[in-house]
């Protein structure tokens, strides 16, 4: 009796094991072997998804992937968030290299620190697009999709001059420049853009730069610096390398009993919500909006064309547009910069 039961039991166990093994092999064959040849699997590595700017970038990639899916393309996107930690991003990329990814879109946390991970990807033949921030060694990616900060800053400076012209203030106009964290790409390029426009005007005697300070992209630092500048200088306008510093300067101007917007014209950069509110209130003249949405959107298409049509981009840097935000487009610019546009130089 007990013998019979154990025979039945062992037969059942053997059957289960056989079914499990056969099923597992079949499943493995169908799930990993076969689709790997036809699916495009993209890894998107974001520096910090907690930042609304980079959330827009991710959104752009999602929209592009969904567009391609609706056209019947077998494409998948896996998103990684490094929370601004270069070590974590390196780990994420290195881990992903061992999986079956067709391409990487990388928004580096640091232009140097992730290079070893990217050269790892290169040796495994995975094409890489960088977005928003580039890497130092440009051979590690086939394309960079990002803002031309020099041009954006030039636009900001031109907007400042336009506002000064309209204000009818006597020349030379006394201008204060507030710069970002020394050594960062954004700070260097924006400073250069400001000077590209202002320096010729300084030589013509139209503009006088009365102070140029570093306020580390910080609002509290800019407040303190601007207060001290106002103690010793007459100022007509302030141009800052980001909105936080512009808003700090506005606080200092108010504290000195002056009116931001009319007594002193302020221009910022980045178009953060706080600054857009200041523009609507007439306290800030202009700011510069970038297009993180298009960065993510174009990067996906670039990867797709690269993989399917062996596409070579017209240049290794596709510049995403910047928009000057003033009171006239303060309500509409965000939809302006979040509308899909065709990738420049895309194959027909």
């Amino acid at each position, binding site marked *: 009796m007990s013998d019979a039961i154990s025979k039945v039991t062992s037969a059942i166990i053997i059957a289960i094991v056989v079914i499990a093994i056969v099923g597992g092999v079949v499943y493995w064959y169908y799930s990993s072997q076969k689709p790997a040849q036809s699916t495009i699997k993209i890894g998107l590595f974001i520096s910090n998804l907690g930042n*609304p700017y980079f959330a827009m970038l991710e959104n752009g990639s999602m929209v592009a992937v969904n567009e391609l899916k609706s056209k019947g393309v077998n494409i998948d996107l896996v998103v990684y968030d490094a929370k601004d930690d270069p070590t974590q991003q390196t780990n994420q990329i290195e881990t992903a290299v061992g999986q079956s990814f067709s391409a990487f879109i990388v928004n580096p946390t640091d232009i140097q620190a992730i290079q070893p991970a990217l050269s790892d990807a290169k040796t495994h033949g995975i094409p890489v697009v960088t977005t928003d921030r580039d890497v130092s060694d440009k051979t590690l990616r086939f394309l960079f999709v990002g803002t031309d900060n020099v041009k954006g800053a030039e636009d900001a400076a031109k907007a400042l001059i336009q506002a000064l012209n309209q204000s009818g203030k006597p020349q030379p106009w006394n201008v204060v420049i507030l710069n970002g964290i020394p050594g960062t790409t954004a700070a260097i390029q924006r400073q250069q853009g400001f000077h590209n426009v202002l320096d010729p005007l300084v030589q013509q005697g139209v503009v006088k730069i009365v102070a140029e300070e570093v306020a580390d992209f*910080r609002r509290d630092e800019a407040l303190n610096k601007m207060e*001290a500048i106002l103690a*010793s200088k007459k100022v007509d306008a302030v141009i800052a390398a980001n909105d936080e510093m512009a808003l700090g300067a506005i606080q200092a101007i108010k*504290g000195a009993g002056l009116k931001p917007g009319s007594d002193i014209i302020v221009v910022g950069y980045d178009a953060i919500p706080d600054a857009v509110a200041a523009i609507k209130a007439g306290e800030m003249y202009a700011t510069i909006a970038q297009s993180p949405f298009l960065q993510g959107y174009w990067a996906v298409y670039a990867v797709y064309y690269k993989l399917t049509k062996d596409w070579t981009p017209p240049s290794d840097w596709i510049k995403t547009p910047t928009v000057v935000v003033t009171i006239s487009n303060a309500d509409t610019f965000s939809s302006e910069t979040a509308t899909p546009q065709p990738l420049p130089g895309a194959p027909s």
Partner: protein
Amino acid sequence: MERTTLRNIVKRITSADEFKPLLALIALYLSSAVISSYFLSVYNQKILLLQATPLVLLALGETMIILMGSIDLSPGSTMALAGLIAALSSNYYGLDIRLSVLIGLLIGALVGLINGLAVTVAKIPSFVATLATMVGARGIVLLITGGESIYGLRGYEWLTDERFFVANMVWIMVVFVIVTYVLLKYTSLGLKIYAIGGNEEATRYSGINVDRVKIVTFTLAGLYYSVAGIMMDARLQAAYPWTGYGSELDAIASSVLGGIQLSGGIGSPIGSFIGAYILTLIANIMVLLGLNPYLQWVVKGFVLGAAAIALSRGLRYVK
């Protein structure tokens, strides 16, 4: 007879904890007035006071901790968290401004309490314990805000409104300096704080509940930092998530410039008030002169080093 008393008075003045920092402040004031004609203007003196005020609050809190021979790295993050919570309470949840400020202050005290418990109950060295709260509190601020400021604050401008020539927050700061001085020099809690910094082992043997003193002092310090945080809300009219980033070092530097010994037990809160003022003054005069921004850091470092040398003269050794 009279000569000896006069000499005694002079000796008492020159040997006071506050003497050297005060001398340095006077010297800096005079030289600044000479090199920049804008320095002594009413406006500039007012902004000096405004800029120094939050730092003084941080320095006073830090001083109480350093006097016990501990260190606190959390001031900058605590002020940001307290300022944010107050701003959220008033702006986002629509609570009464006084209640919102109270909630902010309690949050600061709570962070201080956590520091105190970590140091005493969990026996984590203060450097490590407060490093953890510094990183953790900043993380909470960034989680809540996503890196963006809470703006359009209302009601906080009372702090920057002027009364008797200077802003209300400056008067609050003056009250805090006096209260802290009395607390440290004339109450049993103050004496215990100095005793712990002087010789913690001996203080424990004498039957004083050292752990309780530490918990109370850390909590009190957290409260001071949160006052600074609410002042920054008023200054910026926004709860800025990076407020006070790196301020812990300014608070420690203020204490050092004010003659507080990092080994504990020696120094006066008036000294750290002067120290905070010196730091603010140096930053101010460099901008007035339009000094190269990179050079400004070098000068700041040099002043700190020089002050440390001057203040440790006469000591047999330092740790």
